[in-house]
Every structure is written in structure tokens, then in C-alpha cells.
């Protein structure tokens, strides 16, 4: 179809007849309409609207015509070419859409195929749980205090009014480092962090102390030689048991939901006086047990033992250099592991320390 236009001779041209132009136009429109794909349309375009197409040739000859004939021919050829070009553009658009649709259809994959090439990671619930607890108190303006796990005996016991012969020392079965007269222990509670805080800071003190603690307990479903505690300590002017109650009520609601409050029972801790055990309204039956039916979580008591608390014993304040006439304080402590067991319905404490990834990854959604 291509090739030099050897027949071209402008001097000898005659205007195309209108019928011929119509013919050429109709042939072009038919060819365009007949194209079923973009390739076919391209061929039709080259043949009927390309440089060598009858209409293009006719157009070229127009310039050589006398003025009147030129005007008529120009109009006719221009309309014909316009119609053809429009037909091509319109059909091109249609075919492009068809082409895209076909291509996309061909590229369809099974999006339900598995995509996970590597396993997900997760932080441990004790870690996220401790952070969550810390955040409750951070939001109140408290700070997080920490200390070493291997601790001076004096800080773990004596400074907390647990003298060498205090019967309460037998309540906590302590790991001692060897030789025992090095006076170092694996801390039995996070209370030495409270002592450190009072020894090194001036009141007002508002701190929460989460951490790992140790006791020589046998390892079973509810006991472990290693577990986690969180303690809170406030020392300020005018602090009372009412502030302790308010803080624990807030903490309980933050951990277990609105409406979950606490109650106090008289108890004994050397570092607090008065001292109390703190119980939590059972967050499963919300205290309805045993009226409705016996709740498994609280065993029908309506309350769950949560931890210990009290007003900081003035002896402890004095040992830590705080003016016990001016300041009062409160302290509380509870097991993080135990709190998490309640919160998440974990039945065996050992699940926390076995390191089974099926257990830990289940907590991947914990914030």
C-alpha cells in the first residue's frame, strides 16, 4: 500500500466527483466499523485515513482546483475526513475499553491464596499488660520507677520495717545469694523500688513500680518462683486511706471496666499501718454471685482477692529520710500475672513462662 506516488501530477488533476468522495467515505466507515480489535482498527486507519488513502489524496488535489471548485471540494472532502476520523476515534475508545477489560480479566488472580510468608511476632502479655498498667498511672501524672532484681537485703526488708527477726520475713520465702552474709536477695516484692524512690527523691512522690520478683515457691498452676508485681507509692501532704481507695477504684475500672470497684479488709503488712487486703468486684458476675448462680471466677464470693495495700508505716518514712510528721503516704501492690490471668481467663500460670508461641501470639492484639 505504501510507495512513492508516481502517478501524482498536480497539473493534470481533476476534481473528484462527489460520488467518489462519498464512496471513499463509506468504504472507510465500513472498514472502521468492521475492525474488531485495536490492530484491525490501526490497519483500517492507515488504509482509509492514512497519507495514501483516497480521501487524503483527494485532499491534496484540492489546492490545484479553481477557487469555486476548491471550496466545494474542500467542504466535501473535509466533511468526509471528519466523519471518518470521528468514527476511528469513537471506535478506538470502544476497543480500548474492551481491550483493557479483556486484559484485566486475563490478569485475574485468586486473592484468597495465602500470603503470609513469614510468621508474625508478638510481645508477651506480661510486657503489654505491665505497660497498660503503667499507662493508667502515667495518665494520672505518676511516674514509673524501677530497680534491680538482685537487691540489697536492707532495701528488700529492713528499710520496709521488716527487721531481721520480723516474723513476716517467714511469710516470704526468699532466695538469698551465696554467701548469704553478702546480704543480697532476689527481691521478694517490688517494694525495694519504693524504698529507693523515697531515699533518693523528695516528696511529693507519685510512682508506680512494675517488675519481676522471686520467691522460693514450688512451680504449679498458681505459684511460680518468678512472677511479676506492680506496686504504687504516694507520699504527699494530706494523703489518706481515702486516696488509696480512690486510686485503686480507678485502677480497677481501668483494667476491668467501669463499675468494677474495690473493697478493703483489715490485714497486716509491716510496711503499712493500717493495712488492708484489697478485693475486686468480680468482673465476670459483677458481684451477682452467688445470688444468681455460682460464678466460676470468684467461686461464688462476688469478690476476687487482688492485692495488699495500706498507709505507709511512719517507720518506713523515717528510715527513708522523709518527715513523717509532715507527710503521709499510701502504697499498694498486686500480682501482674494474677491480674492478667483474671483479665484473660488464663487458667494455668505456667502458660506465661513456657514460651509457647501459640500462647503469646494470641496476645498480639493487646495494646
Amino acid at each position, binding site marked *: 500500500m505504501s510507495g512513492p506516488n508516481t502517478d501524482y501530477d498536480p497539473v493534470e488533476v481533476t476534481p473528484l466527483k462527489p460520488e467518489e468522495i462519498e464512496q471513499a467515505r463509506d468504504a472507510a466507515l465500513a472498514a472502521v466499523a468492521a475492525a474488531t480489535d485495536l490492530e484491525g482498527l490501526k490497519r483500517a486507519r492507515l488504509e482509509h485515513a492514512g497519507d495514501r488513502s483516497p480521501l487524503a489524496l483527494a485532499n491534496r488535489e484540492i489546492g490545484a482546483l479553481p477557487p469555486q471548485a476548491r471550496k466545494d471540494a474542500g467542504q466535501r472532502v473535509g466533511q468526509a475526513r471528519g466523519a471518518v476520523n470521528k468514527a476511528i476515534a469513537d471506535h478506538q475508545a470502544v476497543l480500548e475499553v474492551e481491550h483493557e477489560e479483556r486484559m484485566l480479566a486475563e490478569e485475574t488472580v485468586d486473592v484468597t491464596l495465602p500470603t503470609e510468608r513469614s510468621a508474625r511476632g508478638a510481645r508477651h502479655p506480661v510486657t503489654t499488660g505491665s505497660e497498660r498498667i503503667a499507662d493508667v498511672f502515667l495518665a494520672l*501524672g505518676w511516674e514509673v520507677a524501677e530497680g534491680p532484681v538482685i537487691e540489697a537485703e536492707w532495701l528488700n526488708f529492713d528499710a520496709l520495717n521488716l527487721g531481721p527477726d520480723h516474723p*513476716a520475713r517467714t511469710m516470704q520465702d526468699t532466695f538469698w545469694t*551465696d*554467701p548469704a552474709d553478702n*546480704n*543480697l536477695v532476689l527481691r521478694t516484692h517490688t517494694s525495694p523500688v519504693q524504698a529507693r524512690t523515697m531515699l533518693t527523691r523528695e516528696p511529693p512522690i507519685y510512682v508506680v513500680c512494675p517488675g519481676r520478683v522471686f520467691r522460693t515457691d514450688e512451680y504449679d498452676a498458681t505459684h511460680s518462683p518468678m512472677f511479676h508485681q506492680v506496686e504504687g507509692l504516694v507520699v504527699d501532704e494530706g494523703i489518706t486511706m481515702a486516696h488509696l481507695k480512690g486510686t485503686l477504684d480507678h485502677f480497677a475500672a481501668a483494667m476491668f471496666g467501669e463499675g468494677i470497684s474495690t473493697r478493703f479488709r483489715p490485714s497486716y503488712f509491716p510496711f503499712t499501718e493500717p493495712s488492708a487486703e484489697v478485693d475486686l468486684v468480680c468482673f465476670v458476675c459483677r458481684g451477682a454471685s452467688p445470688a444468681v448462680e455460682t460464678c466460676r471466677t470468684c467461686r461464688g464470693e462476688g469478690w476476687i482477692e487482688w492485692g495488699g495495700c495500706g498507709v505507709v508505716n511512719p517507720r518506713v518514712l523515717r528510715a527513708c529520710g522523709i518527715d513523717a510528721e509532715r507527710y503521709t503516704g499510701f502504697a499498694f501492690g498486686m500480682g501482674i500475672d494474677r491480674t492478667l490471668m483474671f483479665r484473660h481467663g488464663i487458667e494455668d500460670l505456667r502458660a506465661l513462662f513456657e514460651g509457647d508461641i501459640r500462647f503469646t501470639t494470641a496476645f498480639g492484639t493487646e495494646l
Partner: protein
Amino acid sequence: MKAPVSWIREYVDLRADVTTEELAARLTALGLKLEAIEKPGDAITGPLVVGRVLTMEPEPQKNGKTINWCTVDVGDANGTGEPQGIVCGAHNFAPGDLVVVVLPGAVLPGNFAISARKTYGHVSAGMICSAAELGLGDDHDGIIVLPSDAGEPGDDALDLLGLREEVIEFEINPDRAYALSLRGIAREAALAYDAPYRDPAARETPAANDQGYPVVVDDPAGCPIFVARVVSGFDPTAPTPAWMARRITQAGMRPISLAVDITNYVMLELGRPIHGYDADKLSGPIRVRRASAGERLTTLDGAERELSEQDLVVTDDSGIIGLGGVMGGETTEMSSTTTRVLVEAAHWDAVSMFRTGKRHKISSEAGKRNERGVDPVITEAAADRVVELLVAHGGATAEPGVTVVGRPPAPPTIPMAYELPARVTGMAIDAATAVANLEAVGCRLDRGDTGVTATPPPWRPDLVDPFDLVEEVARIVGYDQVPSVLPVAKAGRGLTREQRLRRRIGRTLAGAGCVEVLSFPFVGDEAFDMLGLAEDDVLRHTVRLANPLSSEEPAYTTTLLPGLLKAATRNLGRGAPGVALFETGTVAFPVDRGPAPIYGVDWRPSDDELAKLFEAIPDQPLHLAVVLAGERERSGWWGAGRPASWADAIDVVRRLGAELGVSVRVEPTARMPWHPGRCARVLVGDHELGHAGELHPRVCAAFGLPARSAAVEIDLDVLMRHVPDVVQGPRFSNYPVAKEDVALVVDESVPAADVEAALREGAGELLESIRLFDLYTGDQVGAGRKSLAFALRFRAPDRTLTEQEASAARDAAVALAVERLGAVQRA
């Protein structure tokens, strides 16, 4: 402490409609915590009767046991009046004894249905019961033998054993030793209901005289008061009255013999431990003194003990006859032939009792009370009560002599401002309430204008400070009255930088596909051997525990790897195709800077003293360990999977460094437990962070891990110290980048990082980045050589680089690598 409700009611007039549950709840609110309410009879249905053993034939069995084929008279309880044939495995009885028989058709606690069944060649129609089988404690040693006057065959045994009675078990805190007695518990019940109370210790006692058994107390601080009484003509075969045996059983102790039972009964009743001696075995005066080092005593439990100078001992002319207040000795023990009993009621120094009990690891009912503090004023009354019971039930005669050495120590006086209870508790407690409540717990008060001076009752040695009095006032008002007020803290500064970093570290590792594990930090030689550590490896130098749970793991760990590797093995063993685990935790290294001082508690130690204290504490850096074992990437429709390798381990550290803005570098090293050719030393600047790489094949084998498992252990404290405090906003150029690739052939032993460093240094300031994109070894570069291909990107801050500038920089980079490392540029 277990207290039968009927016994409590003996001393306090409670309304009949007060239920046991309500009583327990009220006492719990006062501080005697309910542990359990026992109603053993509720779990028993059907006939439980008294039986008299008529005959018993021991029959040895093939399994080595001997059973007794017995006939037991159960009266008409079996409907026939004929003796009941029963097989019994116990041997602590004889024909003629009264026993407890459960007949077929009955159900015992634990839903244990009794039927006539064939066993050991007989049809055993029922069972002779032990205390444990009836839910009366844990005593499985033999069956219950009833006192001979307990009843007649066929009598209902439920009432006889008190099985229909309710018993409340309390958890008694160490400050409330007075509640380790019915006297104390009843007093609290009276307080709870504001009900009339009769003190069982209130009795007239005969005055001391000089006809009593001679007693000398050398250490009045250790033994402020010692009372001795003697009875003679005691019938050692006299049975313990059924009611007494029942109460002792209900309280969780075991009836033994009348004389012993009486001392135990009075201890339960009054809280005062009593010791009885066979007076005929005593020679010469009783003396109380501290032991000399090296002295020995065989105590009642048969243990021979070496005594300390701090132990209080009771002696006679024969030597030491008892550990005062803790446990008696064998030589003067009461026996089945004792007819003269010397009753010792003494008040002992609580601290000495605690130390002796702890030193000799003796935990006894007497020691428990003596070390917590007993009412010293009732010593004479307690001795007199024992004498009374020995006379009443053992046919004895009280001798006229009454020995009382010493006197009860004077109680303290405690001042308390009237406003203190309100100031401490936040409850509206006025002076009248404070006074009334202190009087209710037995304090004598001297009332002033602004406060009281209280003399606590002798049974409350725990009351020492004003705040102790506040607790007494407050618990009677009721802790449920404490208002709930959230305190307003001063403005806080949020988490510390280190606390925020630790959260970031955990999230980064979880984001890298690692699962966090918490392991016990206990370690032993076995784990170090499994890690292949040399004998002198610094990691073997541990902080050891004096009392480890297991002698196999006697130290606090210096490395997190053992726990983590075991957890990895456990997971793989449970079917996980691969694991990536991490743990952050402190390890410990001994500092050997001497013992930690013990200071007083009456004032704050000085700053210097505190510094000395902190110094003695072992170094406890925070470590991170990671283990990668088995499948790291899964196979699937996308292609093959990939096992974890050394590179994954090093990547975890690099990734962590990148997340924290710390530039970590690695260099080859060899260190167990890693593969010597695949171990990286990780550094920040010149500070060692730790190691990462593939585990040594022997270590994989020792822990049962798949070959090529990889691990990391680094010191997070070091890492966190290098995290930039404030990131400076970066400046970068938007002129076009010029890319240049170079391939260098070097000796195989030359680390890629060294080549990269040379290129980086040689390229100069125009270099924007450098990345190794290919590594080739093979014929084209020759044996012992490798080709490293790097993509270099150059960019200037102020202009478009010309081709000449870029290639000049590349050439300079190559030149330095050639010069420094003998690299050859590949065509």
C-alpha cells in the same frame, strides 16, 4: 486456725440466728480472714455408727500387705444385731476398741459410696473409718479409735464426732497472734456483734509459794515468767474425754494421749503453749539459760540438734531437757507410764523463739504462737487450767507447790492524737469513736485534751505505734466506710527515655516476626556446658544462690540464651515449623565489692552509706537475646521457603539499630556458642554490643535444635546509651543522582565490610550511598578469591554532577580499595 463455732459461742453470747457464714464475714471484715467453713457432716449420708471391735484376724496377703478381718458389733444399726464382718487395712486398734463404722448404703465425702463388696477373700460389709475419710483433716495414719466411754455400739457417730458442727478456718495474720486461740477469736466475735464476752483465762489462781518445784531463770529477758505446777497420781491410761478429742480434731490437731491432749487443748483455748514433763524423770532444779555453742539435744521429734548460744534451753541436773518454748526433749517426755506431771507455762522472748525455730527449722504449733507473741499475763491461769483438767480427767491430785519465777513485762504506753485516725484514714472519726474503739479492743486509756495515752492489753504485743492504734479504731468503724477519692498528683514527666526505648525495642522485634518469651533466670553448669563455654569463660562467673530451687541450677544467669534455646526446642517439639523468639531481661555479674551493709531503720542512711549499699549490688545489665530456628520463610505457591540462617540473626541487630538510629557494625569473630566461621561481633563505635550469627553445630545438637539455627545476644544498656537524644533534621539534595557500579575481586578472607569502608572513604563527600548487590565466587575469579559488586550513588548538594566528576569519584574509591585491600577491579 480452725475454730468450731460451738466453741466460739461458749465464750460469747451470740444470738442463735447468727449464721456461721455471717459470723465469718463479720470476722473477716475485722481482719480474721475466712479461709473455709467446714461442715464435714454435710458430705456424709447414711449410717455412720459406733462399733466395738470383737475379733480381728491379721491375714498376710500376697502383695505384702497384712489386712485385718474383723467382726464388729454395731448394735442394731445393721438391722440384724449380728456382728458386721469388715476388712480393715489399719493396725492401730485392738479387739474391744470403739471405732467408727460406715455401713453399706452410706456415702462419704468425695461422693464415696459404700457397699458390701468382696475383697481379700471376704465380703466386707462397710468400712472402719479414718479421720481423713470423714473429711476431718488429712490424717490418714490409721483409723479413729474412740475413747472407751464415747458411746455404745450402734450409736450415731456424726454427733459424737462433731461432724454436724461447723468449723471456721481463719487465716491469721502474724500481728494477730491472740487470734490463734478460741479466747482471741471469741473476743473478736464479741467485738463484731457488741456481745457479752467471758474470758476463759479469767480465773482465780493459787498464789505462788516456796513449796513448788525449784526453778531458776538465768535469762529473764529470754524468759520473763516461768510457772511450774505438779500433779501426781495421774492415770496414764485414762482416756481423753470425747468432747476434748473432738475439739482437738476439729481444730486440726490430733489427739494423742490425755496429758498431751490437755496441754494442746489449753493452748487452743487460751493461746498459751504449755509443756508437760514426766516429773519422775526430772532430776534437780529446772534452769532456763542460753545454750553454749556445741551443746546437743535430741528433741521430741527424734532429731538430734546442735545448739547455738542464742537458743534458750531448759535444763535439769541431767543436762538440757528442752528447747524452751519450741520443743521438748526426749529424756523427760511424758509416756504411757507417767504418773507425775510437771506443767510448764512460760513466757518466752518472741525474737528468740523466731530465731531458734528458724535455725533448727522447727515449725510447731507452740513455736508459731511463741514467736508471734503470747499474752504474758495469763501464764499462771494457763498452768492452772491444765492442772484442773489433769485432775478432772486423769484422776490426778494437784500438789500444793506453785512456782512462779519472774513477772510479765510491763506493756508500753502509746500516745495518739484524737485527730490521727481521721487524718490517716480519711474517714470522719471523732474523738469519742476513737476512744470507744480503743477501749473495745482492751486498751486502757489516759485521756488528755488533744489525745489519749493508751496502754494496750497484754494479748496485743503488736500494738506499739500510734498508727497501730489507728488501725484498731478504723477496723471497728469498718474499712467499708473509707471514702474513695482520687488524689491529684503533681505534673509527671511521663516515661523516661530508657522506658520509651524499651517499648520501642520490643515492638521492633515483634515487628520483625519475633515472639517474646519470659524464662526463669536460673542457670547451672549443664547449660554452660551445652553452650560449649570454656572453663574460664566470663559467663561462668555467676552470682550464686544460697538456696536455689534446684541444685542443677544454682545461679542467676549471665546469659539469656539457655532459657531461650530451650523454649525454641520446646516449640519445635510441639510442631512449630520454625520459631523466632526473643527475650529481654536482666542478667547478673558478680562485683565482689564486699557484702551489702545492713543499716538501722530509725533514720535514713547517709548518702555515702547509700552509695556503699548500691555499690555492693551486682551489675545487672539488660540483655536481649534472639533465637531463630527452623523455617524462617514458608514455602508456598510463591515458591520455596527458607530456613533461618546466620544472616537473619545479624539482620535483627541491624534492623534494631536502624530503628533506634544507632549505627551498628559487625566484624567477624569466634565466640561460643556460635559457629566460629559464622559469628559476628556487634559494635557501636568501639563499644561491644554482643554477638550474632549461626550457632555452633555442637550447640544445636546439645539443645536439640535444627542445624544452622541462629542466635543473638546483645547488651541493651550499651545500645540504648548510643541512641541519639534528638534527631537532627536531614538535609538532602534534589539534583540528579549519578550511579556507578564497580566489581572488585579480593581475597576470600577480606570482609565485605572492609571493602565497603574503603570504597566509602575513597569516594569522598559526593558519595550518597553504597550497597553491595552481588557476591560471586567461582572459576571466573579463581580459587580463594571472591568478587563483590557494589552500586554507588553520587550526588552533589549544589549542582548536577558531570559524568567526569562521578567517574573520578568512583575511580578514587576503587583506588583506595586496591591500595588498602589488594582489590582488583573486574572488567
